[in-house]
């Protein structure tokens, strides 16, 4: 409990200092209002967005897209990861292709995504899928590849055969790896949610920023950026909580360490 309190105090202090520096820059009067809006104006903007419902409407749309893309990526990434991690020979052929595809920013696919999937929700969902898929796939493959030899020996000894071997031994043993991949993927998917909505959508958090820019409201642009940051942080904490609970259950981290 004291730990949480100490952490919270530190967070409040560092954020306060950041806002103070920001305010000082504004007070020097050397920056145009539209180039650097003051904290007060931006927070009023945030309050306005919350009050008139724009934030909530756009947030709902974004979260729905995010969940669709992320959950699809999680299912596909884990399923393919288990199959490919198990079939090392097949993986040897697939791996080079993955290594070429992985470094490509999902945004680079945008022209094709629009051609193939049209406009509306689909492009953002596809971009989130691409962003989340690779970390989940790769961590699942590596998790399956790192199953402790002793578990396989035990399974062999007790006569555990497929599909029991996959579901009782391989998947649970790889699960901490997979949970870590899901965590990583969440971060990159959130980054690309906004990017996807900035280029293709007519609603959502990313669109909210582009819309504010188009009407030259820099205070609302900054307000949107801050909201995205805070939501990203909350999302990360949420999945970290889940990940740690899973790891404790799995005995990967011990009770005492917390």
């Amino acid at each position: 409990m004291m730990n949480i309190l100490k952490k919270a105090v530190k967070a409040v202090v560092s954020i306060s200092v950041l806002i103070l520096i920001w305010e000082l820059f504004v007070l020097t009067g050397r920056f145009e209002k539209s180039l650097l809006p003051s904290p007060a104006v931006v927070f009023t903007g945030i309050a306005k967005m919350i009050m008139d419902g724009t934030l909530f409407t756009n947030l709902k749309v974004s979260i729905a897209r995010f969940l669709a893309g992320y959950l699809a990526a999680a299912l596909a990434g884990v399923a393919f990861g288990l199959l490919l991690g198990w079939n090392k020979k097949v993986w040897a052929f697939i791996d080079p292709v993955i290594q070429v595809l992985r470094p490509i920013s999902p945004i680079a696919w945008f022209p094709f995504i629009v051609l193939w999937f049209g406009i509306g929700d689909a492009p953002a969902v596809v971009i989130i899928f691409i962003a989340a898929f690779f970390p989940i796939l790769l961590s699942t493959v590596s998790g399956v590849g790192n199953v402790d030899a002793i578990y396989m020996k035990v399974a062999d000894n007790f006569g555990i055969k497929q599909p029991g071997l996959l579901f009782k031994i391989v998947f649970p043993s790889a699960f901490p790896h997979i949970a870590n991949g899901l965590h990583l993927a969440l971060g990159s998917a959130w980054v690309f949610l906004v990017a996807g909505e900035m280029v293709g959508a007519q609603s959502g958090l990313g669109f909210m920023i582009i819309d504010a820019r188009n009407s030259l409201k820099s205070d609302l642009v900054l307000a949107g950026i801050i909201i995205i940051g805070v939501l990203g942080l909350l999302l990360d904490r949420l999945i970290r909580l889940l990940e740690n609970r899973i790891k404790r259950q799995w005995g990967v981290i011990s009770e005492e360490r917390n």
Partner: protein
Amino acid sequence: MFISVSDASREYFFKDKGKTTALHKVNLEIEKGEFICLLGPSGCGKSTLLNLIAGFDKPTSGQVSINGEVVLKPSEDRITIFQNYGLLPWRNVLRNVELGLEAKKIPKKERRRIAEEYIELVGLSAYKNHYPAQLSGGMQQRVALARALAVDPDILLMDEPFGALDAMTRMSMQDEIERLWQEKKKTIIFVTHDIEEAVFLADWIVIMTPSPGRIKSIIKVPLARKRDRTGVDFFKIRDKVFAEFGLKDTVEPDYYL
């Protein structure tokens, strides 16, 4: 003969360095219900021999047979207990003990009953819902024992099972395994490098020496159970084993204090 190892060798071949012989022409006969200790320093092939009997590995020449059948693969009739327990950390004690019963397609209720019976046998009923990470090393090895015994194997193969435990816990685990052996009438082959452990537990001590791994001699331990670790007879056998390894000073001192 129940377990019969005849002329079994295990060689490892390397691309550039030729081969090493982990086990060289080993012959061993074991009767049903015997407690055998394979004793020797590291590299003497005792774990290799155990792996051949378990069926995790195959001899490069010679063979291992049990009840007249050549061992080709692992079987739930002979369960191996490992030094690092091999418990599944994502399952609690009960579900760990049920693992082998699931593979035997025993119905859920029956499975639970058998698992609870064996958890009781190793004295861990109060911990059946705990996870391995919450248990001490000795308790984890008891769980591994319960899991092995639950599938009712003929043979228990133990690969330095108490090697990771402290001296006190080791002794209580030795008492425990002797009790379980007498109660359940299993054949046990027990690998160790601890001479006192071997003298305390074994009907026969198989003394092995390294490079190449082979059996040097087999010593009978004719002591009544439960053995007294501080008794004179115990020390006599222990000295004999020390002498086999050349660890006993043969020069008698001129005087005693």
